[in-house]
């Protein structure tokens, strides 16, 4: 993939294929970020009726912003709502809490194709179709069950005595959560944050279905669209795919240790 992204179009379509780019070029990356220039150069090179660039390619820079915004919002929602819900499930004693917990986990079992049309209707009614909040809501729905489940196993390892002590000292329940429990489960929180980021970042199907214009399309949607064209500039697509991976790679490289440590205490038992 890296290989292809560094080759020019004619080099890519040679037989036998190159294992390494003969003349590495960053042209494709430039094209991804600046579609208009790409169109001009390609016209010059291939002439009219030759290779063309899918129109959605112009939406790429906007899609980067969309993807980042969506994924960060998802991380925020998972950290806030997920922690709150998981904590309430773990410590609260109320009627029907087991049933509610099962229902929460079962939410993960729903096949995406089953719910996509109802989504369309719901979002249409709320006038949310083709907006970032819509994509965020949907991603929140399918990341939260896993968050709640993993954090539950994690929270269960924290002795309740610590919290009781804090409560005796006059903290309210929310203060206890914020000042006592939260620091203790930080590794788990980091792990959850990353997992939800990844899920949101790579999700294609829902984002594909509920977006129509560049206002809310995320990166996988753009790449998917480009690849659905009958004639595709494979080098540019590969470059765009690679660019789409970069944030994920950085996050993995930076947080790998925390990720594993966070899950060591949490996902087990």
């Amino acid at each position, binding site marked *: 993939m890296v290989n292809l992204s560094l080759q020019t179009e004619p080099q890519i*379509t040679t037989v*036998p294929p190159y294992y390494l780019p003969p003349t590495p070029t960053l042209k494709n990356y430039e094209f991804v970020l600046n579609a208009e220039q790409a169109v001009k150069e390609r016209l010059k090179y291939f002439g009219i009726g030759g290779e063309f660039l899918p129109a959605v390619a112009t939406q790429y820079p906007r899609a980067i912003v969309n993807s980042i915004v969506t994924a960060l919002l998802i991380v925020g929602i998972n950290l806030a709502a997920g922690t709150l*819900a998981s904590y309430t499930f773990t410590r609260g004693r109320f009627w029907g809490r087991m049933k509610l917990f099962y229902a929460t986990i079962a939410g993960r079992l729903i096949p995406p*194709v089953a719910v996509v049309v109802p989504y369309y209707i719901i979002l249409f009614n709320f006038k949310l179709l083709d907006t970032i909040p819509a994509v965020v809501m949907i991603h929140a729905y399918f990341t939260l069950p896993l968050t709640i489940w993993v954090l539950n196993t994690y929270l269960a390892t924290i002795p309740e005595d610590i919290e009781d002590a804090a409560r005796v000292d006059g903290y309210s329940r929310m203060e206890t959560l914020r000042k006592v429990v939260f620091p203790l489960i930080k590794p788990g929180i980091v792990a959850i944050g990353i997992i939800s980021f990844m899920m949101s970042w790579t999700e294609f199907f829902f984002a594909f279905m509920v977006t129509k214009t560049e206002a809310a399309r995320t990166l996988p949607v753009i790449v998917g669209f480009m690849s659905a064209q009958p004639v595709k500039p494979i080098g540019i697509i590969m470059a765009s795919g690679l660019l789409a991976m970069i944030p994920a790679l950085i996050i993995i490289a930076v947080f790998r240790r925390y990720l594993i440590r966070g899950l060591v205490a949490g996902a087990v038992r």
Partner: protein
Amino acid sequence: MKGDLKDILIGLLPALIPLFLLGFYPLGYAAYVSLFRFNLKYPDQYGFIGGKNYVDVTQMYYFIGSLTSSVIFALVAIPIILFASLALAMLAARKFRGSGFLQWLILVPWGIPYVVAGLDWKWLFDSNYGLINDILLKLKVIDTYQPWLTMQWPAMFAIVISFIWVTLPLPTLLFLAGIQSIPQELYEASQVDGAKALARFRAITFTWLKPIFLIVAILTTLSSIQVFDPIYVITQGGPADFTAMITFYTFLEMFNFLDFGHASALAFMIFIVSIILIFAYFYALRMGRLRLRA
């Protein structure tokens, strides 16, 4: 500890609103629609028909075929992912030079959208410019370039492999975390007792990892039953519908044939099968019921 109502509401509502609004309400809607004749091509025929959609879809021309390909896909992908991720995790858990890099390398595909991964493999298997053809030709396995994606098994293989590539990191990560939490004393004790490597693996590693095995098995099964993106990108269900799995036909029923009743019936069946499989896993690993820990 008695929690008061206000705290519980504050705690649960932010998470449960999206969950129920976008999870169970649509599912209920799908279940409801599945009982109706609801085809956008024949809007005048809208009406309640009970379980007829369910009977209809089982008799559709694609039903057996797509079910078979779904089963093939699941039977190939799930065991490979389970065992490969366990093996990789055991490898990455060792301390040696570059183990950090290995862990990073294993996790990288996680950041790849399925769409991109699918494209990638599609190109590798390309009939004219793909590397696979070239490598096999040089190794003298094949005489001429082969149009892999127009052949049934290679096409299935391409989908399976791109799916595995992207799905593998999360199970590996979970196993890795599990392995690192095994107390070293257990191994030392077993060494004193003179246990062989295999016995050690069975008695300690596997036993300790059982709960994670369960989580991984469930996640993998779900994602492989509901697999869609790689099919859409790589083969669009071809050749001759060999890779058109049941999810793909649900999609077609909905967006190409515009028969929402049929599509909902199919989707609801997938949901039921998922639940049955999950209970089967709990039973097989004898974990008892899924429980909330406090």
